[in-house]
């Protein structure tokens, strides 16, 4: 299906060169407010609205749909029978033609999207008309490894919350885009940065940090939604980070560790906690009943060199749960102790009820790893219930990186599943993950910590002669079995949406945005967006009409074609 007669609305499409030249030096232009086309009257997003976001077929209130992060949109107007008629309702062109990972948020007919370099747009969700546009005036120093990404905003009360590349948390007036307050999260010159959307819950704004490639000490923080004051900080690196000296990963595979050498290094170097990395850059899921949050912690620093960081490196590469109100530790489970491959835990956690080892339904938490497994853990104590069949080829798993050209191993360092959030259809007990197959060489070389600069301890390079591809995989989380799998032409990054219409929507780097039958994986519709579709789709309904919306702006990490489009689709 091709673009019929899309209405190009709002926005100024600047050439990429021009955009780059102007973005960094400009200040906020929140006065660019067009009040005339506001639909509805968003006065406040209440906690009650957020609590039942998963059943809200009009709005899309959180990055991953609701606090369970199922990315399951409950409207069935667009469904397996009619999705072939889906077409663009409008296309909005942002000012920024660079890597696009935003998850559109929709509240009462108003859509909030972000772009690379921390722009926020409020749009009329029916027409794509711009209501306001905010540009964060970024400082000269922003430190990030994998593109100037932003994954969207949080909405709460009458505010829109943005976390920025220069590590600030910004509260904007939802009606005007004017700054209400701004708080420092951490020092960007030390390697801290923000690419994730915040999570708003019970008067708190939760935020993690990137920086696992820069020798940071990771954290999750809670700020007061009204004032921007810090409420609590959880350090994702334990003071005693050495752990139990595990020799196997969560699935029982040998990690080839030299424990004696590590213990000798520990005696000499001490605990490496201070520069151990452990970023958190996807939203935590929130278990409201137990007042706990669940998130995954990323790789240790430096990525490929274990010499300066003896021990299990807790809580890197782990599922962690903390108390929502206090930020105190509840439990953790480490997937890959002493990671040397950047095969870390990134994709957002998802809360479901799943069968435990004895067949009883228990509150569980899902995570899709770069390893290519979906892990199912018990929410009570974080222990692993099961892991799925491998979704991508795993070869020479956990072979140690070597000097020089390096060791070939699969999956490559982007996964498996990168940051791309999964979606869940709870009526089918299926979770949907998008994967990369990207053969890489892993090489190691020790280097001193370079003061907040990229610190990989080696290199991972894509093997040019080998084929790359991706897939969409449906996993039954009650059994760990793959229900269906569809191969895609290119490695996949972006995210996926499931709907009550029996569909899953996901995009590819080559510009295709596709709908599949969520029961079978049959492709039912495709659209060519002209730029990489590497962002998580959202669903919403205005005046009784259902829409699916996605960003098509390409991706820095897989270097897909850049664009600047937000595309909303609907039926006639």
């Amino acid at each position, binding site marked *: 299906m091709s673009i019929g007669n899309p209405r190009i609305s709002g926005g100024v499409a600047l050439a*990429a060169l021009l955009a780059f030249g102007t973005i960094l030096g400009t200040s906020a232009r929140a006065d660019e407010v067009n009040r005339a086309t506001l639909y509805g009257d968003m006065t406040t997003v209440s906690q009650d609205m957020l609590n039942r976001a998963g059943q809200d077929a009009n709005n899309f209130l959180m990055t991953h749909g609701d606090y369970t992060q199922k990315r399951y949109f409950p409207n069935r107007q667009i469904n397996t029978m009619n999705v072939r008629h889906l077409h663009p309702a409008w296309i909005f062109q942002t000012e920024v033609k660079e890597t696009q990972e935003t998850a559109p948020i929709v509240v009462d007919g108003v859509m909030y999207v972000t772009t690379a370099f921390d722009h926020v747009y409020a749009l009329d969700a029916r027409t794509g008309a711009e209501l306001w546009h905010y540009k964060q005036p970024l400082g000269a*120093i922003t430190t990030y490894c*994998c*593109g100037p990404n932003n994954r969207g905003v949080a909405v709460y009360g009458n505010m829109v919350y943005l976390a920025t590349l220069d590590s600030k948390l910004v509260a904007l007036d939802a009606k005007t885009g004017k700054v209400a307050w701004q708080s420092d999260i951490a020092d960007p010159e030390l390697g801290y940065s923000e690419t994730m959307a915040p999570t708003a819950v019970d008067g708190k704004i939760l935020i993690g940090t990137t920086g696992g490639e820069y020798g940071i000490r990771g954290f999750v923080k809670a700020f007061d939604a009204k004032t921007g004051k810090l409420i609590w900080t959880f350090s994702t690196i334990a003071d005693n980070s050495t752990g139990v000296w595990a020799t196997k990963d969560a699935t029982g595979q040998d990690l080839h560790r030299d424990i004696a050498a590590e213990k000798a290094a520990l005696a000499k170097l001490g605990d490496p906690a201070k520069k151990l990395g452990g970023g958190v850059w996807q939203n935590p899921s929130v278990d409201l009943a137990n007042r706990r949050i669940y998130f995954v912690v990323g790789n240790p620093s430096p990525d490929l060199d274990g010499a300066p960081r003896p021990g299990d490196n807790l809580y890197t590469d782990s599922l962690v749960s903390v108390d929502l109100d206090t930020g105190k530790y509840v439990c953790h489970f480490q997937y890959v102790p002493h990671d040397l491959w950047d095969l870390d835990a990134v994709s957002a956690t998802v809360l479901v009820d799943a069968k435990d080892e004895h067949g009883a339904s228990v509150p569980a938490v899902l995570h899709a790893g770069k390893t290519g497994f979906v892990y199912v853990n018990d929410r009570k104590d974080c222990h692993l219930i099961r892991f799925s069949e491998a979704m991508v080829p795993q070869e020479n798993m956990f072979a140690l990186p070597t000097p020089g050209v390096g060791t070939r191993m699969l999956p490559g360092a982007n996964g498996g599943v990168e940051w791309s959030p999964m979606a869940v259809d709870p009526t089918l007990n299926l979770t949907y993950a998008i994967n990369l197959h990207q053969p890489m060489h892993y*090489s190691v070389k020790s280097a*001193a910590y370079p003061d907040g*600069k990229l610190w990989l301890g080696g290199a991972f390079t894509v093997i*040019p002669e080998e084929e790359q591809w991706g897939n969409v995989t449906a996993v039954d989380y009650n059994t760990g079995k793959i229900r269906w799998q569809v191969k895609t032409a290119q490695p996949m990054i972006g995210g996926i949406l499931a709907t009550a219409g029996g569909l899953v929507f996901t995009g590819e780097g080559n510009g295709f945005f596709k709908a599949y039958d969520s029961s079978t994986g049959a492709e039912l519709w495709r659209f060519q967006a002209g730029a990489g579709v590497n962002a998580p789709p959202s669903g919403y309904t205005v005046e009784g009409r259902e829409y699916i919306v996605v960003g098509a702006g390409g991706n820095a990490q897989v270097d897909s074609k850049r664009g600047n489009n937000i595309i909303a689709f609907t039926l006639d």
Partner: protein
Amino acid sequence: MPTWILAVFAALALIAPAHADGIAEKVTLCASCHGENGVPVDAKIPVIWGQNAGYLYIELRDFKRGARASEVMAPVVADMSRDEMMALAEYFSKKPWPNLAQKPADAATAEHAQAVANSAQCSQCHLAGFLGASLVPRVSDQGYDYLLTTLEAFRSGARANNAWMTDLMKAYSEADIKALAAYLAGL
């Protein structure tokens, strides 16, 4: 020693006692090598007009710390404060990128370079169009000689302030690096 290096030391000798409040004199000093109009006076000297401010600051900082070795730059930055470095970085970042009149690489070289760039995942940091942002330099249309010298210096470890670039460049051949430099210079 090339004459332009002597010129730097001569300029330094004049400026050092001045204790100027602003950065105007330092800008003049910079221009003696990096060019009055942004075109460097020697092909091995990088373009700094229009370069990303964060990158310029970090390099000045690293010259001062000795993390990036340069017998020319070390004395230039020896007494510079962080604020002065930031101000210089901001100043030059706002200048337009000069026209070096470099020709695009031929098709075979471009194809070769793109394969290398894909393998090394250059765009993860240097972004679309190799324009970089903040701490990551623009490398498109940078001078060929400087690019080649720099990539080779990373590869040999002579440029030691970005270890990951050394690790990355070691994975590629001299021919790969030449193709990359030619391709980037011609963008």
